């Protein structure tokens, strides 16, 4: 704010409109103050700032001291030499200065010394509203309190004279309302120049060793008595006569409210106004009280005056009733409102009539109008504040579990949302010792945030102590080169710029200084600090956004093609799951460390693209890493109705393309899914009350079950029919429990049935029901999910011997193979299952023979590896020529395949080196067919090879008939069968919907690859087939996921940063160019890489 042009004039001038702070400065100017030392602190900051502006013109020695103790000592030393000095700070600063202040009255001053300590009733900008009038009493200092700026000027002037008269520093105690309030002030003449200063030796008066101190104490009493003698002079005590025997004593700004209230009440009662707080003006008080029966004491905060008046009256034997706080008339806390003073007066004077506060208000909102609410506007870090980058990185690195202690400054705002970086806050410099000892007590590594000014003010001793104790603490020094919160006063750090050297000199070996604009370096430095032990210091340097007068850098540009988009949404598969701030923060940090997202980065993570069901893998893996199991389950459940099937039987195309692998193992995505499904929790599924048409699904295997679940979602009432008594199909009846644990399978199936799906077991198509019959029952459509449940029959001589089995019947009811030598013909998963299950059941040996070379075997490579580890012998590239043995099979003749026709179907054409192998049981696992015999299927649906004819979405040549799963594709994988069921449900919905809009298809189109492809990486995964990772293992493994791909539901820039320049809303956020200073934090924090620095 501009000062009046003639603010420094020697001659009387004005009138001006001055704030209390400015008036105090002018008072000091008029009194020829020579030395001023202060520390910024609301509401006193402007005193120092104003002296800073005028010092050159007036030749005043002004400094922003490192802290209030030093400020006080600096001012005292000047006063010791006969100079007039002033120090100013907020009330809390007095506490910091209290140690030297407690002994100064013993030494006394030679030149006048004024201490301005500004109070803050109502805690406008302070953590407490201490009443430091008691401190004056405790230490023996004269204390004054002005009621308006004009009086502030007068009192400041007079305080210097008072100080010299009694040789004690004088405490001036303005409150915030006075400091910042403005009123008319007339300036007086400046005193003539003062003589130069000199230090005069006085051992008895300047060395308070015990022998001198006692004498000094006696002198203090005399000095205070001198001060009291001043109170008779005008300006310190003002008595206004009045009528009646009830009076008012008032001090401070509330004095004005007393006058206002008395005017309003049209009362003229005796009023005693005290600008002198200590020593108490006993004479004036006594004569005032003598004439009264009752007195109301009006003051803010504690009953300091009230108690003193009561005690005085008691001592003097004056019978007077003292009213005020002690009897509940005057509030103890906060500022006194005009209304409160009015109420107290009316009560004491027993007046009726309207209270001041009963003024008419605007009517409230009309009942029929919507109620409008202005969203809260708490203070936030400025747009472009470097501390935002520090808090963003620190929150990501340290996570929610770390105890964080914050300190006093702008950066205290980091404790508010979205960062929440602050569990405890105390006083200047407290962060380091608190964090250090909390680390010791909790056994955890803790974090302290402290600004540069605060660090130099009071942080260094704490750091030294932490080094001594080798405490497990990370100290993040937020260096913005200034003291920002109080008005951008220079900080000692800015002048010296050697914080790193200071930190190292205090003994910290693990210290680093980072420019916060380099997000990557900052994140890595914090990571390193987190992993270290003992004290680590990271100096996060970046200039305050308000410091630089230069043009700010231009705002980043937002690419709408990358924001709020991912490939899944474009493919019609939006997941609708908003990632939590924890996950977004991890993703943002991963991006920051990885650097800019290249244009060739895939929109969708490769794993999600490869998933036949279209599950968003980063969504659930990221949630597991963040410990958010509910969200993870929701992400999986959004696409997979039977997640345990995926978790145990999926062919894992995701892991084959995992970007985190890079030659090492991919993220164990499948094992993580097992972790989720084994927790026992189910994602909450909201299904509408089925009101729609009934649909029949023949076959309750994976395809049928998935189709049923999807149809319920779409409002239909599906009924499942299966030839077997229990649902599940192949998975429940032909996959060994060692690969598909029954408990979780039953749970998933039950969950589908619990949606309201009816199940009819023991019903075979063509026997118990027919297609026409189903339609006659009222089903609007029929889905054939028959599976491929017939084992292919071998054309090998001797296949009719006893002991020769087909794979699926073998697995459905495993015969006694104990001690037998089992030979399995086939190279797929079923062959492996047979071999491994045989060994589990006590077979002596199990050998797998298949004509294709090993690398072409369709069995899952890891199942192959596990099988071999369990003892299965694999002879790839071999074929069985014939089986021999009288009655039961005893021997198999096996040859090496030298000629192979890959068909399909696969056939060997030439063999060599035929040898005999002993075998007690031979099982053929050479393929599966659809069982369409006697089903009564229309010809248009059945293909030449027995498979049903349908398109990718299950549509057949008949409008009401659909087909899904292995029955259409031939033997495929469980996941693909389920995806087929989901697609078919969509096609059915479209067919029956008519004009009603239909939700998009919720499974992607099938991709070319339908079987396992041997991936060198997928062999022997860390977690075995049915291993369930522990929570800790799952979290660690999930953290390996790099969260590739974009996220269409991302809100990272809005939710993680809380920058005023980023305005969120529906969809893409907007950037406010008028607030943005181009700091670039959002650019490297953007998960999708949608923000860029303009060229």
């Amino acid at each position, binding site marked *: 704010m501009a000062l009046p042009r003639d603010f420094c004039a020697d001659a009387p001038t004005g009138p001006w409109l001055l704030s209390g702070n400015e008036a105090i400065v002018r008072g000091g100017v008029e009194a020829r103050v020579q030395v001023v030392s202060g520390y910024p602190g609301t509401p006193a900051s402007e005193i120092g700032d104003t002296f800073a502006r005028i010092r050159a013109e007036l030749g005043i020695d002004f400094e922003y001291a490192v802290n209030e103790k030093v400020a006080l000592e600096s001012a005292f030393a000047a006063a010791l030499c006969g100079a007039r000095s002033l120090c100013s700070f907020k009330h809390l600063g007095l506490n910091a200065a209290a140690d030297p202040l407690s002994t100064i009255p013993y030494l006394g001053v030679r030149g006048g010394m004024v201490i301005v300590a500004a109070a803050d009733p109502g805690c406008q900008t302070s953590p407490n509203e201490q009443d430091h009038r008691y401190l004056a009493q405790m230490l023996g200092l004269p204390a004054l309190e002005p009621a308006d700026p004009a009086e502030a000027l007068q009192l400041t002037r007079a305080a210097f004279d008072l100080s010299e008269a009694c040789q004690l520093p004088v405490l001036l105690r303005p409150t915030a309302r006075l400091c910042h309030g403005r009123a008319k002030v007339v300036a007086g003449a400046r005193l003539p120049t003062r003589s130069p200063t000199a230090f005069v030796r006085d051992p008895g008066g300047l060395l308070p060793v015990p022998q001198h101190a006692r004498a000094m104490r006696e002198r203090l009493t005399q000095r205070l008595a001198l001060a009291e003698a001043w109170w008779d002079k005008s300006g310190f005590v003002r008595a206004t006569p009045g009528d009646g025997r009830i009076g008012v004593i008032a001090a401070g700004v509330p004095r004005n409210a007393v006058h206002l209230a008395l005017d309003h009440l049209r009362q003229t009662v005796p009023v005693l106004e005290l600008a002198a707080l200590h020593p108490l003006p006993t004479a004036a008080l006594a004569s005032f009280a003598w004439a009264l029966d009752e007195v109301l004491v009006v003051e803010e905060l504690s009953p300091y005056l009230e108690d003193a008046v009561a005690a005085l009256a008691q001592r003097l034997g004056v019978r007077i009733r003292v009213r005020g706080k002690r009897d509940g008339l005057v509030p103890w806390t906060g500022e006194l409102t005009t209304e409160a003073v009015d109420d107290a007066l009316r009560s004491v004077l027993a007046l009726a009539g309207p209270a001041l506060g009963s*003024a008419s208000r605007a009517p*409230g909102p009309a009942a029929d109008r919507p109620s409008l609410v202005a969203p809260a506007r708490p203070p936030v870090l400025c747009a472009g504040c470097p501390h935002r980058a520090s808090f963003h990185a620190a929150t990501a690195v340290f996570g929610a579990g770390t105890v964080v202690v914050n300190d006093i400054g702008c950066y205290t705002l980091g404790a508010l949302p979205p960062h929440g970086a602050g569990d405890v806050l105390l006083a200047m410099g407290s962060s380091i010792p608190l964090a250090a000892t909390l680390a010791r007590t909790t056994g955890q590594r803790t974090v302290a945030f402290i600004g540069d000014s605060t660090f130099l003010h009071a942080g260094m001793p704490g750091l030294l102590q932490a080094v001594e104790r080798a405490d497990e603490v990370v100290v993040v020094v937020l260096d913005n080169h200034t003291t920002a919160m109080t008005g951008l006063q220079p900080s000692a750090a800015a002048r010296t710029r050697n914080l790193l050297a200071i930190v190292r000199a205090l003994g910290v070996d693990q210290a680093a200084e980072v420019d916060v604009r380099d997000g990557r370096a900052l994140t890595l430095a914090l990571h390193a600090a987190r992993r270290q032990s003992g004290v680590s210091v990271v100096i996060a340097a970046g200039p305050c956004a308000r410091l630089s007068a230069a043009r700010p850098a231009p705002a980043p540009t937002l690419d709408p093609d990358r924001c709020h988009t991912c490939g899944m949404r474009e493919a019609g598969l939006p997941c609708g799951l908003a990632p939590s701030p924890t996950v977004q923060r991890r993703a943002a940090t991963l991006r920051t460390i990885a650097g800019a997202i290249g244009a060739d980065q895939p929109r969708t993570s490769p794993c999600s693209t490869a998933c036949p069901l279209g599950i968003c893998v980063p969504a659930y893996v990221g949630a597991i890493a963040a410990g958010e199991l509910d969200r993870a389950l929701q992400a999986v459940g959004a696409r997979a109705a039977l997640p345990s099937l995926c978790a145990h039987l999926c062919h894992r195309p995701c892991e084959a393309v995992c970007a985190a692998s890079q030659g090492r193992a991919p993220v164990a995505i499948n094992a993580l899914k097992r972790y989720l499904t084994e927790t026992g929790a189910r994602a909450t599924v909201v299904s509408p009350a089925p009101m729609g048409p009934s649909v029949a699904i023949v076959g309750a295997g994976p395809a049928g079950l998935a189709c049923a679940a999807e149809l319920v979602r779409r409002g239909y009432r599906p009924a499942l029919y299966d030839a077997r008594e229990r649902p599940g199909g192949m998975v429940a009846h032909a996959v060994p429990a060692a690969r598909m644990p029954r408990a979780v399978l039953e749970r998933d199936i039950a969950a589908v049935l619990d949606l309201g799906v009816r199940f009819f077991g023991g019903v075979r198509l063509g026997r118990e029901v027919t297609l026409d019959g189903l339609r006659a029952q009222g089903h609007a459509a029929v889905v054939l999910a028959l599976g491929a449940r017939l084992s292919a029959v071998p054309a090998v001589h001797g296949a009719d011997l006893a002991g020769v089995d087909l794979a699926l019947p073998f697995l459905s009811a495993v015969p006694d193979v104990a001690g037998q030598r089992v030979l399995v013909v086939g190279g797929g998963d079923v062959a492996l299952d047979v071999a491994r299950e045989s060994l589990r059941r006590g077979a002596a040996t199990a050998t797998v023979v298949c004509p294709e070379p090993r690398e072409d075997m369709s069995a899952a490579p890891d199942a192959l590896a596990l099988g071999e580890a369990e003892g299965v012998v694999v002879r790839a590239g071999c074929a069985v020529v014939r089986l021999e043995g009288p009655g039961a099979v005893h021997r198999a003749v096996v040859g090496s395949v030298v000629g192979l026709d890959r068909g399909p179907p696969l056939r060997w054409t030439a063999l060599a080196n035929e040898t005999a192998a002993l075998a007690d049981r031979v099982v053929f696992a050479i393929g599966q067919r659809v069982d369409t015999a006697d089903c009564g299927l229309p010809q248009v649906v059945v293909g030449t090879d027995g498979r049903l004819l349908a398109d990718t979405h299950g549509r057949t040549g008949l409008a009401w008939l659909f087909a899904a799963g292995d029955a259409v594709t031939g033997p495929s994988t469980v996941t693909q069968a389920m995806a087929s069921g989901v697609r078919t449900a969509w096609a059915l919905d479209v067919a029956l919907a008519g004009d009603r809009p239909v939700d998009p298809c919720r499974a992607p189109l099938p991709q070319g690859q339908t079987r396992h492809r041997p991936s060198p990486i997928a062999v022997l995964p860390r977690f075995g087939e049915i291993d369930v990772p522990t929570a800790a293992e799952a979290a660690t493994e999930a953290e390996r996921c790099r969260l590739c791909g974009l996220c269409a539901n991302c809100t990272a820039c809005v939710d993680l940063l809380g920058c005023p320049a980023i305005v969120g809303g529906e969809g893409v956020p907007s950037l406010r160019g008028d607030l943005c200073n181009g700091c670039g934090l959002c650019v490297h924090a953007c998960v999708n890489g949608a923000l860029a620095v303009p060229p």
Partner: protein
Amino acid sequence: MWLVGVGGQGVVSAAQTLAEGALRASVPVVVTEMHGMAQRGGAVEARVRLGSEHLCGPTQRPPEFVVALELLEALRVLPHLARYTRAIVDRHISPPPSASLRRLAVPSAAAIESELRQRLTEVAAVDAHAVAREVGIAGVAGVVLLGALCRHAALGVPTDAVRAAVGDRCPEAHRAGNLRAFDMGASWAAR
């Protein structure tokens, strides 16, 4: 009167300018300001009392005038106003980051203005930011509203005195622009 807005808009400066004008015209005046957190985008309020020299504590008594440099702040202070409070507002909304963070609905400018007109006898809505853009000086929105305020005879401070204060308090280079902004505010309200 109460002057409200967002930190950095010039609320406090406008209050001081008005008070300077009063001082020049020898009208007793007292100003109180809510400081501190205002620099960090928080709400700011300044109160100017004309005809009194008592620097009082906070009061619940509704003001005769409210000058709002931002509409959400006008809405926020509305429950404390009286029906007779005359409002001079800038048609400008600055949503706080908390609205984005907590997904709070932000009422539209039109809705707020309508609400103010519904509950107050007199509302003058000025496009002060548009004037500021036209004049080419950021931060003169407060000056524009002062111009609009001074139109009221009930104010008790001569317009010339406030205008002179505006001129004196701004840098030389911006003087013409500031005075133009003031005049445009005054003429706007006269429409």
